[in-house]
């Protein structure tokens, strides 16, 4: 299985940096996600994850390090968490970590959004202050 590597952009579109590694099972999304065409960007990532669950079937560590994301990106984050939750329910191993800037003011808003992700998907998210 191929790895996915996408370099983040802070320009016309705000594209997050993506690193999905099939050898280590470590998947990372970081940066900013404010795209015009969110579904088009995230669809290959969903496909990769689903394939990994079936073909590789090893533990997944999913690391989020997102500073900004819009509401349509938040729907895609929900989709990712749902895929991981299903994998776990079917006997797979998946851990999700959410890294955030503990120094930032008004971090409560961001933590509230992560709490909403957990309530919506029932997938555990480990919060890691940096």
């Amino acid at each position, binding site marked *: 299985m191929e790895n996915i590597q996408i370099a983040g952009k802070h*320009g*016309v*579109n*705000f594209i997050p940096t993506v690193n999905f590694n099939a050898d280590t099972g470590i998947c990372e999304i970081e940066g900013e996600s*404010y795209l*015009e065409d969110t579904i088009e960007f995230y669809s290959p990532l969903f496909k990769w994850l689903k394939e990994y669950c079936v073909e590789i079937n090893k533990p997944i560590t999913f690391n989020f390090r997102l500073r*900004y994301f*819009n*509401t*349509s990106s*938040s*729907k895609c984050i*929900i989709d990712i968490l749902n895929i991981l939750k299903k994998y776990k329910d079917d006997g797979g191993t998946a851990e999700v970590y959410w890294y955030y800037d503990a120094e*930032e*003011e*008004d971090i409560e*808003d961001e933590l*509230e959004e992560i709490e*909403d992700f957990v*309530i*919506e998907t029932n997938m555990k998210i480990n919060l890691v202050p940096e």
Partner: protein
Amino acid sequence: MNVAENAYQVYTELIDSTIISYNGPFDAQVLSIIAENIEYSLSDNPRVSKKLFKIFIELAQNISYYSAEKQENSEGILFGVGIIMLREFENHYSFSTGNLIERKQVLPVLQKCETINLLDREKLRQYKRKLRNMPSGEPGSGNIGLIQVALTADYPLEYSVIPVNDDNSFYIINIRVNKN
């Protein structure tokens, strides 16, 4: 005061308070330039800068998708047209957007704004989660941008709809964020 003096007063007041104003199509290029300007203009207040950035992206994407007035960009893709203004006052910043909506959208738009303003924070989060979980295409599903705007702002939404002609109305939203 004569008309010229009056116009000059309006002009200077607007110039004094306006940080950003734009009228035209909301394509990705425009969004990125304005977003960058917000970050740059408010770099000394990261809390406010982040809030206004988040609010701007959601409001601008709403205009881009839902404005009844469309314009082609240089690549021939249609984008919604609207107006946006960021102004600074003594204790707060105010973000105003305006765009045309079809007449049949007036009632749903007003109802949505009304519902959002009636809900407290916890209920608003519940409402957001409910809409986000609905399959896209179902009535009421999809657009949770305005809910996120309300969760990010420091005041209730200020909104109004002005009839323009038989087909369209002008939909205005004003969002306030405290400086401190």
